[in-house]
Each structure stands twice: as structure tokens, then as C-alpha cells.
């Protein structure tokens, strides 16, 4: 269960608990409170009218749209809930795992060994299957041959990672032209 869903469920159950306490208090006329004293007649009438209109199919387009949206949101939420969460660690196979920061650090090291790369930032996502999905953003000087740099970078990173035994199942490289004065390294 995702953190968002946990928060929603916690608030929902807290609300239901409070309502339950009120229901017991009002149902048994405790502390001088009774159901007849509740100002819910207008709400009950409104609800009854709404249900009648739903049964008669006499709803405005806005109401129908809101109900459909609520149903779609509920369905999407349900699907998200059923989707298994991504693992935290990168599986290397045969009971060995590496943290995402280790993989990110090694990819960054490999990328910055390429002479044309002035700096890099790396995003790593673990997968259920062995290997990580890596998004590498490398900063290069303006006017360089991006195609050549990209293929060289791809080869270098794959080779370096395989030497270390860290599997990368998917490597996305994005080259960003940057001003050398604003990058980590000005000259390689």
C-alpha cells in the first residue's frame, strides 16, 4: 500500500471511528443526546431527493460528469493499489542486491570518464527482474557531435558496469548542451 493510500485509509477509519462513537451516543440517548435532536432532516430530505432523481434518470449533465469522474478516479486508484510497488534495491541475480545509490554512483563515475562529458546526473529505478533502469543525463559542450558522444557513452557505461558486475537492463542517455562554466568539470 502506498503512503498516500495509507494516509487516506487512516483518515477514513479515524472518521468512521468518530462517527461510530457519535452513533452509539445518540442511539442510546447518552449524555442527554438523542437522534431526534440531530439537525439532519434537511440532509436526509436532500439525499432522498437525489436518490430518487438517480432512479428516475433525471440528473443534470454536471452531476453525471462528477459521478463518472468519481468512478474513474476510484477505478484508477484501485488499479494503482493492485500494482506491486517497485523494489528498493537493484537485483543482481542469485541473491545479491545493490542499493540504487551504488548503481547511480558507478554510472556517474563511468560517464564522467568519457572526455566529452562535463558533468552528469543519474536516476536509477530498481526492477523486479535483475538489472536497473538507468536514466543518465550527461552535460556536454555546445556544438559537439551528440550522436558520437552518445554511442561512446553508452558503450563506456555498459562496459564499466559489466566489469563491476552491476547489471543495467535499460540505459537511457540524454545529452544536454551546457555552458562549461556552469558544469562540474570545465575541461576533461
Amino acid at each position, binding site marked *: 500500500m502506498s503512503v498516500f493510500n495509507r494516509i487516506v485509509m487512516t483518515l477514513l477509519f479515524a472518521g468512521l471511528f468518530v462517527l461510530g462513537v457519535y452513533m452509539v451516543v445518540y442511539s442510546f440517548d447518552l449524555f442527554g443526546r438523542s437522534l431526534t435532536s440531530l439537525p439532519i432532516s434537511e440532509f436526509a430530505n436532500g439525499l432522498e431527493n437525489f436518490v430518487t432523481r438517480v432512479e428516475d434518470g433525471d440528473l443534470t449533465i454536471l452531476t453525471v460528469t462528477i459521478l463518472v469522474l468519481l468512478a474513474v478516479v476510484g477505478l484508477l486508484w484501485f488499479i494503482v493499489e493492485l500494482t506491486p510497488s517497485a523494489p528498493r*534495491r537493484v537485483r543482481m541475480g542469485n541473491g*545479491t542486491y545493490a542499493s540504487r*545509490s*551504488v548503481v547511480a554512483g*558507478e554510472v556517474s563515475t563511468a560517464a564522467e570518464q568519457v572526455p566529452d562529458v562535463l558533468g552528469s546526473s543519474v536516476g536509477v529505478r530498481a526492477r523486479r527482474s535483475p538489472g536497473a533502469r538507468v536514466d543518465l543525463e550527461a552535460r556536454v559542450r555546445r556544438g559537439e557531435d551528440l550522436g558520437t558522444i552518445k554511442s561512446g557513452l553508452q558503450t563506456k557505461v555498459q562496459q564499466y558496469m559489466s566489469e*563491476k*558486475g552491476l547489471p543495467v537492463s535499460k540505459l537511457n542517455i540524454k545529452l544536454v548542451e551546457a555552458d562549461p562554466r556552469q558544469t562540474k568539470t570545465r575541461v576533461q
Partner: protein
Amino acid sequence: MGRGRWVEAATYEGNEKVSGVVVGPEDLEIHIVADYPLPRPIPEIAENIRERVAPQSGGRTTSVVVEDLEVAEDERL
């Protein structure tokens, strides 16, 4: 030994806490921090650890988790 991000990689037994090892009924997790540069590829290091630990693991499935890589201190400095 690695401790996990929130020091969650630990085993509690009585009054004792052992960091870096999570012992379950059927599995065993060993969290390590490897020295950099690596002497061997990580899978080989993990395999060596697994072999060393196997006699004491009581038949548990052993996983090795590499938490971090640290630059080893140069003794000449």
C-alpha cells in the same frame, strides 16, 4: 557492514543488537559497504561472503546487499 538507510538492517536478540545482519526464520540478509576500488566484481565478492557465512547460516537463504561503496583509506597518507 552496512546499516541501511534508517539503520533498519539489524537483528535484535535479547539486549543485543547486531547491525548489518538481518536474520529471519528462513532467510539471512547481509548488508555490506564495499571498499573502492573493488578488488573483484561485486557478484564475486557476494559469492565469497555467502560461502564464508554458509556454515553458520543454518540453511537459510542468504542475500548480500551492497549498501554503498567507500573509497578505501590510503595507508601511505
